[in-house]
Every structure is written in C-alpha cells, then in structure tokens.
C-alpha cells in the first residue's frame, strides 16, 4: 500500500499569491494513498527539506510529491533530501505549480484547481514509481575544445594545466580568433597581439594539448564522460611535418590579389598563405578556391620553391576520431555584414567600414601599417563618423539585444584615431553609452574629455555620398532632436555582434539548444552560465552572447573548472532513466517477439539482439536488449513497440497512463 507524502511550497509569495496553498495541501490529503500533506513557506530551504526528511522517517513514506517549482529547478535538491532520509530518490516527484501554474494564471479558483490537478497527477505517477539504482559509467579524461579564439585558448590552457588532455579544434588555419585581429584593447590600450601571442605559443607547446587547426567537428556521439568526436582535418595541401614554416612559398606565389580574411577584406594575400605572421601553427595553407593550379592545372610554383618538398596538391581531408569526456564550445561570434544596412551604404561605399576593419586600419600589422587611411583613395580622413548600435537594439532590424562591446570599442576607435591623426575630428553617434565594467566609464570619459571625441546622442538615418564625402544624416536628441548633417571622410559602423554563420548546424551536431538569435543557450541564465542543457558540454565566450575579452576569459576559466570537476572522478553516476526490455520467467522469457523495429529507430545504436538459450544451449528466442551505457532515455523505442515489451524507467507506461487518468479525475478508482 502506497504511503505518499505531499509537500506544498509557498515559494515566498510566488505560489501563494495566486494559489490557495493550504487548500492544495488539504485537498491532496484526500487523495487515496496520501498519508501526509503539508504546506510551507520555502520548501527548498533547509527547514523545508527537514520537513520532508522527518516525514519520510516518521510516517514511513513510500513516495514523495513536492508541489513547488519546475523539476528543472529543484528536482535534484529534493531527490537528494529523500536519499538522505533513506528513501530511494527516484520515488520523489515534483509537481510544478509555479512555472506552470501560479506564475502564468491569475489568482482565483481555476488556478488553485489546476494546482490540485497537477498534484493529483504527480501523486498518481509517484505511486507507480520504482526504486532505481543510478548507472555508473567511466569518464574519459580528455576534453574537446571547439574554437581557438581567446575563450578556447584560455579553456584549453586551464584544462591542460590541471593535468588533463585537451584536443583543440580551430576551423581557421591559425588559432587566435577575433582577438588576434584587434589593434589595441580597452580599457588599457595594450596591444592585443602582444598579450595574445604568448598564449597562442603556450597552446602550441603544451604537452597536454593536441591542436587541430584548419579542422572542423564532423559529428559528436555519446554522452557525458563518453563522447566520440569525429574531426575533419581539412587538407592544407602540404605535409605539416616537413614544412618548416620558412614562408618561401607564400612569397613566391604569383597570385596576390585575394582579399585577406584576417585583414577583414582590406588587405590582400596570396593563394598559399599564413593568415598573419604570428600564426599558430605557422604553416601555410593553400586556398584551393583561388589557387591557379587548382583552377587551371598549371603553376605549382610553391612546390618548386619549397626547400623540403612539403607541398601535397592531392592531399585529401582527413577524419580523426577521438574519445573525449567533455566538450567546451568556444566558437565565438561574427558581425553583421553588408546588405544589412542599405541606408548606411555599407557594402556600397568603400569608406563605410565596420569595426573589425577599423581595427585592421589601426593595427601596426594591418594593411596600412597602422596609419588611418581610408580604403577608397588612401587619404587620411579629416572627419570620421563612428556609428554605435548599427543594427543592435533595433527591433526593426530583428536584433533587439545590445551587442555589449560596441560602446567600448567605439570609444577606443575614436581615441586611437585621435592619437594617430591629431587634427582629425571624431564624431560618435550613439543611443546610450553602456560602459559598465572596471575602468570602463572612466575610459569613455577620457575619450570625451581628454581626446576631444564629439559625442552626439542620436541615431543616423542615412549615409550617402556627395562630392567625395559621406553625408551622415542624423539627429541630436539632446538638442531637441535637431537634425544633424555631417560630412565625413570615413564612417565606422559598430555593426551588431551576431552568432557564427554555422552556429545552428553545430548546435544540432552537439544537441545543445540555442536562442532565437542562434546564440547557444546556457543551462540557467544566472546559476549555470557555462553549462548547456546537454550534460558534459560547456560554453565559453561569445558563442553564448556577445561579450568582451575579460568576460570571455572568465567564462572560459569557469568552463575549464567545470571540466576539471567532472574529470576529478573516475566514474560518473547517471540517472537510470533508460529503456528496458521485458524479461520474465520461463516459459515466456520475454514478451518481446524480436521484430527489432526499435533497433532501427534508436538514435544511439543502444539496442542489440540477445539470444535466449535453454540449459541445453538451444536457441529459444532472439529478443531486444538495451545497452544501458548507450541508452539516453528518449523513449522512441517505447512508443514504437507493438507488444509494449520495452518500457522506460521514470516514464513507464504505468506512470504516464496513471498521470493522464488522474489528471482527468478518473484514475483513483484503483488508488
């Protein structure tokens, strides 16, 4: 006979403001099988948990229903409490009367009724729950870090320094990411390359780190502690072991007119190239799309000049397989490109550039060697307009969010421009200045007060060319929305930071969720900011949301710490919510008839054929068997099984049918 305890939480006033919690508790007490029912202000607090524990022991409860918040919030809390009181944790269920009831409905009879319905449903379920034993699985103590920008570099180094193996995968020919493209960094104006390149070298030399540059993740299977990654090493068209990185091939390549990705299209590069001098690894790659040999079958000059005969024109892509226990996703961000701003002539006028292009103009290693010269005619611009929030915070453009880094880098750009062109006039058009951060507000102030950057609070409606100048039409809202027209020589748009073009595709390969803007979703916006909803996969950097360098680094170290905690144990405990095939005593053995529909439907190849043999070794029947290490508990096989011979623990037929009937008030007959 079931002895169920029901514990109704007020959650301060979060539940009790709209739900009559006392009535929920008294109604719950009337449900057959419920022997204990109370309400309390904060059930998740220590005294609240004590209530649960005491009741389990005093009343000999066989099941617990906590009517409170979402199980995604506190199910682990209460299951742990139950375990501590000696009740199998899988005999505890949460009735979600907060997210699914008190927060979404008005105060009233219907809302209280719904709360009671929810409790009744979960009581019916818990009666059918069974004590389950957690599954133990081994942990592969190697981490896969995706993305070799500053976040990925930091995460890889932290994990490697903790003594674990790291596989770092970068899709570009060199690690370094966007940070390597920057000139100086706010708020200290220290040179980006100078602080980044030592880290890049450290990655290359670290004994615990295996670097796969110019590589991408093909696929990821498995689960926390036991992932299997397939990595595509794209053909560099040269033998990396033979290549010494002397650079002769890149100097001799006759084709030198390809826009350089590293210089954001402002500089040119040859077809065989190293993205930038400090690249790691410092080995070139042949751009097969542009290379004359791949296009016409002639040239092969690089092959002729290579002193070590390292060029391999027929090199294929290589697939590397690796067992990893955890994944850190640090794939970074992109910025909005041309055609998104027709009113600003971005992509049409050469002198309307984006922030990343300005970084290259200001960088000593950039196409102008650090001189600010505009792309159209190479002249030093006398007036430069900087436009903040180009796309960001603009619902009409579909980007409601703030890109977070633009206020700061715009102030930095204006400042750098002023430092390099002393007589120049920088004008910043802005909506608000968001300079929250250590020394950030002071930095913006400095731009205004010491460097004389003119800040105009207003948005720009249009930019067009007139007589070799760019006319910037905007408004000054601090001067009564007066229209402003500025003739600029160069316009820098702080275009919105957006997710990487392949973000969605990668998320689907990793089975992590993403938001409406394709940024990866953290498990909890406040309390689990570096974890995803998929156990064992962590987030670092701007792939989660736009963020600056210090924040990316902090999150990367956070993710690394999470990986470290995971790797500190040799075995992992997994929830046993997996499928099981019916087995029973002879002469039936199993109701499974061996149709193996389930086998084809299982996304994890977790279903195997098992031969049941008699004592004499004679085959009695072949039935399905679930590999508990591989099964993830989706239950697709359960719904598919025609003889209902396969069931899933935690969501069994008995449990869900009881829930449906209880919800409709029909399940209590057999209470």
């Amino acid at each position, binding site marked *: 006979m079931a002895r169920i305890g029901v514990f109704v939480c007020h959650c301060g006033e979060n539940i009790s403001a709209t739900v009559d919690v006392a009535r929920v508790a008294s109604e719950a007490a009337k449900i057959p099988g419920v022997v204990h029912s109370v309400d309390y202000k904060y059930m998740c607090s220590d005294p609240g948990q004590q209530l649960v524990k005491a009741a389990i022991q005093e009343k000999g409860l066989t099941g617990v229903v906590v009517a409170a918040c*979402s*199980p*995604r919030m506190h199910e682990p809390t209460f299951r742990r409490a139950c375990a501590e009181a000696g009740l199998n944790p899988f005999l505890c269920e949460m009735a*979600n009367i*907060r*997210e*699914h*009831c008190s*927060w*979404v*409905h*008005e105060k009233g009879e*219907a*809302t209280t*009724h*719904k709360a009671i*319905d*929810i409790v009744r*449903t979960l009581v019916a379920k818990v009666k059918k729950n069974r004590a389950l034993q957690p599954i133990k699985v081994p942990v592969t103590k190697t981490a896969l870090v995706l993305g070799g920008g500053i976040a990925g570099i930091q995460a890889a180094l932290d994990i490697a320094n903790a003594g674990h193996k790291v596989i770092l995968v970068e899709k570009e020919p060199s690690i370094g990411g966007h940070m390597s493209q920057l000139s100086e960094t706010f708020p200290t104006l220290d040179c980006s390359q100078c602080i980044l390149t030592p880290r890049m070298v450290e990655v290359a030399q670290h004994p615990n780190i295996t670097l796969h540059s110019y590589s991408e993740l093909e696929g990821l299977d498995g689960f926390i502690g036991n992932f299997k990654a397939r990595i595509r090493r794209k053909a560099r068209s040269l033998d990396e072991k033979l290549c010494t990185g002397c650079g002769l091939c890149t100097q001799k390549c006759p084709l030198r007119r390809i826009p350089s990705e590293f210089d954001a299209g402002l500089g040119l590069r040859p077809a065989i190239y190293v993205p930038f001098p400090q690249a790691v690894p410092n080995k070139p790659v042949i751009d097969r799309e542009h290379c004359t040999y791949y296009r016409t079958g002639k040239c092969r000059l690089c092959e002729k000049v290579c002193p070590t005969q390292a060029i391999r024109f027929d090199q294929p892509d290589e697939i590397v397989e690796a067992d990893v226990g955890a994944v850190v996703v640090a794939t970074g961000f992109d910025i909005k490109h041309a055609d998104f701003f027709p009113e600003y002539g971005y992509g049409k006028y050469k002198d309307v550039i984006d922030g990343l292009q300005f970084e290259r103009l200001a960088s000593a290693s950039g196409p102008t060697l650090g001189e600010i010269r505009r792309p159209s005619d190479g002249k030093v611009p006398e007036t430069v307009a900087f436009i903040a929030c180009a796309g960001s915070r603009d619902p009409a453009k579909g980007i409601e969010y703030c890109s977070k880094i633009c206020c700061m880098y715009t102030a930095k750009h204006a400042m750098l421009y002023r430092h390099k062109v002393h007589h120049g006039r920088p004008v910043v058009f802005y909506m608000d200045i968001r300079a929250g951060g250590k020394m950030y507000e002071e930095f913006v102030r400095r731009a205004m007060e010491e460097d004389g950057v003119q800040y105009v609070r207003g948005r720009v409606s249009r930019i067009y060319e007139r007589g070799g100048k760019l006319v910037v039409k905007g408004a000054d809202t601090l001067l009564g929305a007066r229209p402003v027209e500025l003739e600029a020589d160069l316009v820098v748009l702080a275009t919105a930071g957006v997710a990487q073009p392949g973000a969605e595709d990668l*998320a*689907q390969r990793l*089975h992590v*969720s*993403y*938001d*409406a803007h394709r940024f990866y*979703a953290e498990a909890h916006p406040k309390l689990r900011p570096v974890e995803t*909803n*998929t156990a064992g996969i962590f987030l670092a950097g701007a792939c989660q949301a736009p963020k600056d360098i210090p924040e990316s680094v902090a999150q990367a170290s956070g993710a690394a710490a999470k990986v470290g905690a995971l790797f500190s144990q040799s075995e992992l405990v997994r929830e046993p*919510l997996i499928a099981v095939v019916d087995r029973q005593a002879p002469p039936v053995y199993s109701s499974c008839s061996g149709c193996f529909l389930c086998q084809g*439907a299982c*996304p*994890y190849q977790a279903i195997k054929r098992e031969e049941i043999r008699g004592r004499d070794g004679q085959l009695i029947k072949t039935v399905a068997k679930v590999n508990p290490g591989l099964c*993830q*508990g*989706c*239950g*697709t096989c*359960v*719904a*598919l099984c025609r003889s209902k011979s396969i069931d*899933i623990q*935690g*969501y069994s*037929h008995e449990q*869900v*049918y009881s*829930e*449906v*009937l209880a*919800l*409709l*008030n*029909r399940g209590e007959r057999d209470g």
Partner: protein
Amino acid sequence: MAEFDPKIVAFVCNWCTYAGADLTGTSRMKYSPQVSVIRFPCTGRIDFMLLLKAFAGGADGVIVSGCHPNDCHYSSGNFHARRRWIVFRGLLDFLGIDVRRVRFSWVSAAEGAKWAQLVNETVEQVRVLGPHRAYQRLRGLGVG
C-alpha cells in the same frame, strides 16, 4: 450562459516545450489555466494511444509539442512523433474525433511566448468545438 471551460492535456517533451513553458512562467506571461502538462523525455516517447486514453478519459482537447525539427535533444524523436501524428490523424477521423481537437506543435526552450499563444489558441479552438462528448462511445469500444 457561462463559458465552457475545456479540459486540455498537453503532452510535451522535457527539453524544449517543458522548458519553454517554464520560460513562460519565469517571464510571467499569462495564459488560460485549462491546460495541464504531462512531461515526457521526448515527443518520440509519446505513445499516441495516450491521446485516445485522454479523450476517453474526458479530455476536450490535446496538445502535443516538442522540439523544432532538427533541434531534438535525441536528434530524431520529434520526427518519429511527427510521422506518428500524420498516421494518427486518420485514426482520429475514423474514430469520429474532430482532428481540430489536437494541436501538434513545436515550442523551443526559448519560446515562452509561443507556448502561451499555443495554449490560448487551443483553448479558443476547443471552446468553439464545444465539449467532447464522444468519449462515452469510445469507452464502449473498449478503449477507455
């Protein structure tokens, strides 16, 4: 005349729609209380006999909702559910249950507003269709 309050059972997956409905809560968006949720690991787990059981038990409408195509936590469970739903529609029709009583949808963990809208639309729809009285007949057929 008092407005008819339909009883609607929502079968949702744990990873997308359940989380999306949680987000509706954390965003404090309001919707009709006529819907109660039953949680599944995945829409692929949802045995559509459960839907008949719900109708037989007196539900006026049913929602089935999971992750968007390609976003399934288990990669393909939602496709199984979709295929099952397409076949199931024919059975519903055969049983004389108006197909409009079932809403099949995708609500992601980020779509709190969509969940509220889905619930409200379903409640409205079922209100227009009126109470589902055919379940006695179903029980006669031995389904309930």
